[in-house]
């Protein structure tokens, strides 16, 4: 396996880490206005992700940096091409991060409700936009011979991509609801469980539509063949099993299955793209691939060594934080945020 492929896989791993981890804290942010009845509830909800959200977000920053380092042309085309969508996502991430830190540092109810609203918006926007972005990447966008994106914002807002956006929104929200079922107590836990159970069917329906439509709108599934292989089939199986675990209130398993489903979805998307990283809708020869978009072999070697040393270390200490803060949080607990 060449280093270009190694980095293609590593970037998939970073996205899996990002979607799996930040996915649930986006979901928690989206559910904040709906599950809480009073300020103390809202604080409990925010405190379930309090120690984790910032570390989770670094998976995105690292994925962005890794794309820049390993595939500079991918970074340049994607970021300059999806410009206004990224401005929107950045605004969401900025207000959300500040809101977590600021919202409980003043008692004024209007201050708190302003920041709560920003937590919702700042979680909703990226949860939606990531589906839109990924659907567009697999569907193909207008990229010219000199690797530049030549469409506008409205090229990105096509119906297929919007279904992709709704799917990621639903998937992350469901992920957040299951996480809250695992991390809260009493009636808050009950409400989270009920929400997760209600979200399961619509989420599955959206995924179903996205996959079927994907056979017509993209070449991903055609490339994978009639029997698409282990990854997408297992993804489907995991998501179906999750429904059963939810029904039997085994939230730990449901959370694992939803996470597995998301991870295998990313694997499927990357398998369908390989060896491309962005599909040109104008001319297949103009697509960006792991070869024409990549850094030099020397840089890829350096980065491989760095990644092989430090990614496991990060996994260990981030895993440790989830161990330290493994307990459920209730209204009687001391709340920092």
């Amino acid at each position, binding site marked *: 396996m060449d280093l270009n492929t190694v980095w293609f896989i590593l970037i998939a791993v970073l996205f899996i880490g990002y979607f799996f981890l930040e996915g649930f804290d986006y979901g928690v942010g989206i559910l904040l206005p709906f599950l809480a009845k009073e*300020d103390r509830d809202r*604080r409990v909800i925010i405190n379930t992700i*309090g*120690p984790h959200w*910032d*570390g989770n*977000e*670094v998976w995105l*920053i*690292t994925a*962005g*940096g890794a794309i*820049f*380092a390993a595939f*500079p*042309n991918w*970074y*340049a*085309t*994607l*970021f*300059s091409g999806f*410009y*206004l969508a*990224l*401005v929107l996502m*950045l*605004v969401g*991430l*900025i*207000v959300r*991060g*500040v809101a977590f*830190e*600021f919202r*409980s*540092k*003043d*008692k004024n109810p209007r201050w708190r409700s302003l920041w709560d609203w920003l937590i919702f918006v700042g979680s909703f926007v990226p949860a939606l936009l990531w589906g839109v972005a990924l659907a567009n990447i697999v569907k193909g966008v207008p990229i010219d011979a000199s*690797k*530049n*994106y*030549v469409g506008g914002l409205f090229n990105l807002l096509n119906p297929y991509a919007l279904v992709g956006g709704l799917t990621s929104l639903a998937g992350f929200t469901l992920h957040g609801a299951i996480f809250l079922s695992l991390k809260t107590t009493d009636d808050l836990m009950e409400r989270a469980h009920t929400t997760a159970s209600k979200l399961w069917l619509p989420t599955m329906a959206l995924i179903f539509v996205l996959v079927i439509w994907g056979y017509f709108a993209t070449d991903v599934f055609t490339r994978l063949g009639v029997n698409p292989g282990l990854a997408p089939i297992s993804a489907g199986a995991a998501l179906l099993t999750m429904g059963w675990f939810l029904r039997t209130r085994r939230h730990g398993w449901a959370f694992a299955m939803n996470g597995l489903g998301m991870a295998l979805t990313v694997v499927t998307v990357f398998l369908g793209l390989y060896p491309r990283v962005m599909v040109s809708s104008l001319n297949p020869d103009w697509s960006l691939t792991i070869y024409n978009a990549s*850094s*030099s072999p*020397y*840089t890829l070697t*350096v980065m491989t060594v*760095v990644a092989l040393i*430090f990614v496991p270390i*990060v996994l260990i*200490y*981030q895993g440790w*934080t989830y161990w*330290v803060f493994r307990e459920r949080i209730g209204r009687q*607990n*001391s*709340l*920092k*945020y």
Partner: protein
Amino acid sequence: MMDALLLARLQFAITTVYHFFFVPLTLGLSILVAIMESAYVRYGNDLYKRLTQFWGKLFLINFALGVVTGIVQEFQFGMNWSEYSRFVGDIFGAPLAIEALLAFFLESTFLGIWIFGWDKLSKGAHAAVMWAVAIGSSLSALWILIANSFMQEPVGYVLRNGRAEMTDFFALLANPHVWVQFPHVLFSGITTAAFFVLGISAWHLLRKSNVDFFRRSFQIGIIYGVIGSVLVILVGHSQAQHMVQTQPMKMAAAEALWENADPASMSLFTFGNEPERRDVFAIRIPRLLSLLAYNRLDGEVKGIKNLEAEYEAKYGPGNYAPPIALSYWNFRLMVGSGFLMAFLALLGLYLVLKNQFEGRAWYLRLMPYALFLPYLANTTGWLLTELGRQPWIVFGLMKTDQAVSPTVTAGMVLTSLVTFTLLYGALMVADVYLLAKYARSEPGKEDLIGLPDLSGQGGE
């Protein structure tokens, strides 16, 4: 109508200067809070715990904005500067990715543990967690400055396949520019944190509130401030000498030195005519610039006009001078506020050693205003560094006007520029409101959020 290039440059200036309002305090205060908490572990004195928590809370409010504005920094290279990203990505992307992997994960993950882990970890482990945050912050500065240093002084590369490709990773790390720039930034962070602590402590001491607490804060702040402000000047001196060697045009612009001079005099005050490249009025000290550049009373310092001719011969016709008046005044504001801070810190040290500082009301009244000096120095320092490199985005390799994204329109850049500027402005109001509120609060009697919450009722 402004063009996309100018708007993209303006956006980079605004978002970077804004980001760097928060970063130096994070750098310096993370170390100081870790020291305070270590003192608590070592001596078991409750005062140190309260110091850790009071200054730690202000650290957190500041940290939040530094983090979120940092995301914009990483994204905007690709968004506004895609040609730059393609040209240097093989080199520049690596330190950015390593910064995220080594520094951001460490900083963010351990800060989460620090905030929420007061009653979950032992005292020693909790202090160690703060050290991890501080090390993460400094590592982050190191890696981003390794990236920036390549733009100032490219090393370890070859031009191949129409771009700059890395040939020697360790040359990037050993880039001499890194090892003058990183200490300069680190000590400016330490100075920023010191003056932050000194300003707020002086405010309380004047009002005789919590005298024990703020006396100790002030004493710690003075020691920290003397270390930071003296070292930042000494390192700055080496940095300037390095600049004379590697980026002589930046130094010539910072000094408004039009012609080669040996010995070179230093300008105390110059009012110049930039288009005609001449002084209108100037006060100069003979030989001082040579002395600063070479540590002796003679030695040639190159002038703007000579360098322009040299660069035209080397790189072809074009404009090779940075904005001279801006470089000149930014340099003077940075150096001036730097020396003023060192003076105030040393004076404070004298008063502390003579145990007189609480009686000197004029000094205590001055220090809350001195809190703004490091911000002035930090901002003008970066403006000099980045403006003084123009017209280059990577010195000698790529010009800024070749670096901008070709397909991003002026309207798009304007949209994001206005969006970020308004958003940043609003967040600054909220941030200053909270900082002022908690800075004025009585230690141990703030809302107790982010701190061990013994009542179980938190901020309600």
